[in-house]
């Protein structure tokens, strides 16, 4: 086994792939997407900081003052009792928990205008103020507002959802409090009685219990799980098409005159694997960046944002990628060498995917109970280890001996696969013509 040969093959493989536009597009599309969904909402929310100049005409004479106060309270993170009530009632009515909306930081610059003269004339005057941009919008709180719950909003932009929602929430709170008072109840007492119950989830780990967003923790585990699945499948297939290409372009025999088939296969696997690692490194760096607490970025759609990605998990992720990649890529290399056209090879390659399906089905169970006997056993089955061990590590760090056992078993399987597949590769790569049967493949393995 000459290392130089394997190295030359691997380097060609790596450089020729890294040099393509496709690689860089593929590499940056995903991080760009992650960054987009994590940063953009915050950016948009930040933009609504510009205050909305709002004129209010209050025919009831009771709503404007508390509304101004409510809007000035600003930070909604401190949920007012009224809001808590409203959410609680909504939850009761809709039968599902209302997800906490992103925290808008919109501020309002409110001027209360006295009701004067003809209603139509005053409305027209307010409209022209909006048009000459001395105000952004105006509210008309009619006399029947407390009964009908209807308030008119006029503005240039009627589509600013965040602002309008805040305005609507504030109005609802004020009107509801007024109604409660009118009916003889104490609003504060009612809110207290209707306050909802929160489940605070705490992840128990060896380093001690620490609070962690339950949904978010699972989400991160799933992200890593699918990323690993995806990249193993993608790069495995790349090995297959690469081998087929060499076979059909007939360059393989020229190479084989200087290099042993096993060196060629190993070089190819290493080169393409290195491309995969490069891509992963870029992706993980992005993920580390996004989840870094210092940046305080929050995924807008996940309450509490995603938890920090520990470096140990990243380390295991890379190791498991290498193992998983070699496990499946050797298989794909053998298939690529044995068949002559891409469709036949893909049909056979689909059988490798069957080995990736059980981890997919077992995933939810593992997440629910990562330490059950079944979870532990399944995560030690060599072909399942890369994906399932990853899931377990991400959800709750398993005992070291289990991780090590998983690594040892998988490495042994990889070596076995390399041995078997190199034999098939050696024969298949020079075999043109009809597609081989399974029996023939077995016979190739038996050739000395």
């Amino acid at each position: 086994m000459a290392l130089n040969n394997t190295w030359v093959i691997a380097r060609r493989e790596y450089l020729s792939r890294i040099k393509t536009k496709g690689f860089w597009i593929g590499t940056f599309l995903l991080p760009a997407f992650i960054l987009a969904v994590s940063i953009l909402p915050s950016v948009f929310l930040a933009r609504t900081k510009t205050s909305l100049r709002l004129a209010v005409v209050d025919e009831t004479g009771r709503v404007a003052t508390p509304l101004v106060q409510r809007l000035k309270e600003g930070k909604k993170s401190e949920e007012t009792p009224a809001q808590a009530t409203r959410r609680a009632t909504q939850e009761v009515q809709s039968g599902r928990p209302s997800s906490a909306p992103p925290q808008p930081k919109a501020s309002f610059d409110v001027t209360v205008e006295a009701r004067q003269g003809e209603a139509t004339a005053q409305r027209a005057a307010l409209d022209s103020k909006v048009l000459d941009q001395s105000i952004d919008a105006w509210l008309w709180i009619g006399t029947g507002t407390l009964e009908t719950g209807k308030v008119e909003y006029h503005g240039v932009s009627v589509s600013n959802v965040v602002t309008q929602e805040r305005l609507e929430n504030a109005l609802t709170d004020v009107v509801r409090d007024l109604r409660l008072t009118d009916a003889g109840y104490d609003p504060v007492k009612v809110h207290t009685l209707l306050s909802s119950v929160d489940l605070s989830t705490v992840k128990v780990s060896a380093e001690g219990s620490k609070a962690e967003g339950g949904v978010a923790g699972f989400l991160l585990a799933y992200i890593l799980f699918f990323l690993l699945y995806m990249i193993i499948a993608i790069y495995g297939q790349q090995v297959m098409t690469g081998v087929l290409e060499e076979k059909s372009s007939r360059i393989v025999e020229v190479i084989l005159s200087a290099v042993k088939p096993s060196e060629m296969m190993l070089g190819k696997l290493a080169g393409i694997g290195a491309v995969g690692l490069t891509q992963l490194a870029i992706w993980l760096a992005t993920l580390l960046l996004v989840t870094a607490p210092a940046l305080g970025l929050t995924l807008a759609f996940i309450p509490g944002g995603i938890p920090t990605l520990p470096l140990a998990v990243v380390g295991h992720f890379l190791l498991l990628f290498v193992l998983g990649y070699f496990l499946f890529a050797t298989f794909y290399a053998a298939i690529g060498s044995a068949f002559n056209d891409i469709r036949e090879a893909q049909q056979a390659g689909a059988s490798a995917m069957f080995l990736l399906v059980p981890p997919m089905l077992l995933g939810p169970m593992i997440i629910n109970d990562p330490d059950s006997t079944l979870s532990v056993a399944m995560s030690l089955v060599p072909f399942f280890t890369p994906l399932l061990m990853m899931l377990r590590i991400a959800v709750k760090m398993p005992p070291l001996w289990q991780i090590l056992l998983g690594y040892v078993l998988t490495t042994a399987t990889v070596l076995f696969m390399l041995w078997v597949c190199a034999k098939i590769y050696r024969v298949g790569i020079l075999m043109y013509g009809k597609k081989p049967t399974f029996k023939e493949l077995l016979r190739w393995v038996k050739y000395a």
Partner: protein
Amino acid sequence: MSYSLELRDVRKSYGDFQAVKGATFGVPPGTIFGLLGPNGAGKTSTIRMIMDITAPDSGEILMSGRPRISADLHRIGYLPEERGLYRKMTVFDQLLFLGELHGLGRAVLAKRIQSWLERLEIAAWGKKKIEELSKGMQQKIQLVGTLLHEPDLVILDEPFSGLDPINQGLFKEAFADLKRQGKTILLSTHVMEQAEKLCDHICLISNGRAVLDGELREIKRKWGGNAFTLRIEGDPQVLATLPGVDTLTVSPDDPQSAKVLLRPDANGADVLKQAIGLVRVHEFRSEEPDLEQIFIKAVRDGAQ
């Protein structure tokens, strides 16, 4: 004198099929050695074993008198019958890669590639991708890749297949050049005429067996001297029955003309007399036997 390359009773089977049934021959240094035989005779199987791409079931392969080791492969330039290049790679990178596989450094290779490209008058093409080149140009690049590491022994499997006449000429020139430099060439072909013009030494293979092996001149002298062309009225096949006639081949261009090879003990004048008694003979001419006839005879004799 030790052979540049020597095979001793090399055998190879694929399942039940015996592709090579005991190949034994030696390639003298500095010669052009032709491995001849029809398609399926076992030429490629033999060459693949020489290149250590497949292992023989039994037998020995020697280079310069000692068993071939894997480092010897870097002394061989190999142009397989099935050939191709990475389509997306540039000419320069492609050649660099092939050279590096033989353990050469980049600086040395860069110089050699440049001089080769200049020699082929395509110096400006180094940056072009292989897929942008014409088929003929790709074949030239392929030949450069075979010779880049300056091998002592060049093995070419059907080097002329798929070549246009211009490139055929170019390849032949290159081979003559190599021979002048003292290199040894082993080429396989099923086209006897080519071998006849190019080779010093030939080995005829049929059905996985070497049926004839030796210097071309020697073979011709031994097997020749008794070849004639007859042009007659009617089908020349009737002549095959004449005593003394060993083989008969009807000319594909002229159905009334045939080449006959006589047994060594037979006499041309006797055969002519008998022929005249049988048909009308328009022409009777003494010939140097061509390799094709010798091959047919050797195969038939070998089968007996």
